[in-house]
């Protein structure tokens, strides 16, 4: 082969090589664009799913609130007012003073319960007073019932998370407290607020009977666990549930601090 022919062969080889690589890159671009479209579709789908879950969680929150109002009115206010009615019906000339004082006392208690209910349901009240103050009121109300001993321990600054997040976190804590009161058969309930890395941590623990294993395996949805978990996801926080039979339950909420 002559040198000139060989140079031509080399030049052609290089051109073919560059052509093959260009073809590879063109194919890559075509495939990449397909993947990009698929990726965009998946992203849009995930975002719509997330939006759906947020809406669902918000509906569940509203449903929970309505149920709480209903229970509170039925269990507390309703009974106190029935008691007041009986008390008024049993008034006679002889016991007028005693019965009227007793009825006043019952009505005062009913007003107190309604006031507490109104405050605990009002998000603005929580925003204005802060998480710790609102929790202290909850603790006082729980201790006032005499059903169990409630303690609040605070080692963190509540100002570190946003107002809206504070309300959502407060609702979750309320849910955990309600679960403890209704199901745990506990004598002691402890609420501890602390910092965990760059998050505010709230732990609600009791010494009750714990969550039955079959409910734990089924994610304990009936106890509002899914709702609490979703609310924590909404806040980009963590939800941790620890429960040991006959030793108690601990629920940990973690919400990122506002930078």
């Amino acid at each position, binding site marked *: 082969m002559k040198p000139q022919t060989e140079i031509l062969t*080399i030049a052609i080889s290089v051109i073919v090589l560059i052509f093959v690589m260009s073809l590879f890159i063109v194919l890559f671009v075509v495939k*990449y*664009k397909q993947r990009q479209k698929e990726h965009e579709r998946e992203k849009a789908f995930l975002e719509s799913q997330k939006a759906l879950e947020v809406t669902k969680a918000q509906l569940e929150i509203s449903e929970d609130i309505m149920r709480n109002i209903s229970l509170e009115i039925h269990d507390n206010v309703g009974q106190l007012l029935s008691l007041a009615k009986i008390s008024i019906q049993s008034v006679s000339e002889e016991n007028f003073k005693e019965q009227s004082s007793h009825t006043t006392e019952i009505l005062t208690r009913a007003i107190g319960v309604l006031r507490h209910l109104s405050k605990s349901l009002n998000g603005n009240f929580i925003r204005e007073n802060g998480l710790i103050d609102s929790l202290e009121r909850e603790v006082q109300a729980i201790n006032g019932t005499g059903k169990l001993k409630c303690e609040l321990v605070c080692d963190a600054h509540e100002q570190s998370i946003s107002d809206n997040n504070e309300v959502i976190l407060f609702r979750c804590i309320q849910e955990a407290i309600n679960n403890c009161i209704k199901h745990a058969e506990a004598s002691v309930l402890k609420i501890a607020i602390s910092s965990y890395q760059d998050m505010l941590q709230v732990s609600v623990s009791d010494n009750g009977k714990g969550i039955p294993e079959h409910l734990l395996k089924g994610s304990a949805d009936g106890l509002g666990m899914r709702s609490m978990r979703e609310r924590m996801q909404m806040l980009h926080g963590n939800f941790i549930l620890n429960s040991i039979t006959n030793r108690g339950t601990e629920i940990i909420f973690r919400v990122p601090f506002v930078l």
Partner: protein
Amino acid sequence: MFPFLSETQFPAHLFCVIMTALCFFTFQTLMKASPIWKFMQLFFVIVLIAIILNSIFFQDIDTFPTIGVNLFQLFFVINSGSFFFQLLNRPNSIPIFRDAVFWYNTSTFIYYSTSYFIFTIPYFLISHEISVNTTGVINIVLCLIYYPLIGYALYLNANRAKYETSN
């Protein structure tokens, strides 16, 4: 000033080591999250050792390190090829032709694979009494493709914020 440099190929040997390390650190920033990155780290160590062993035992300091050059070019080609697959697995939201890393990777892939090819043929050229200058011409053509593409990638990278906000 440095007369020993005219009698030795030490800078070329050093160049091979520096280019391999440079390639590794460049692709480290791009592919650190890739599942094959551990394999690439191992591959880097093997290539580096092979280049050093070549400089010590096969092509000494007075000989041009063709094997070393081929190794680091191969390392570049494999890294850029792998990065193409990573891009396919994790597509960015910005259009591909406005993506600086795409242009960087494309230019690297074309330049080093062609360069690898032309660096493997001097033996063939010499044995057939053809001037090695032919490969020099091809290399100049490659540089004319490579550096403008790198420049374009740098331009896109400098204006990345603008493109990201406009999409």
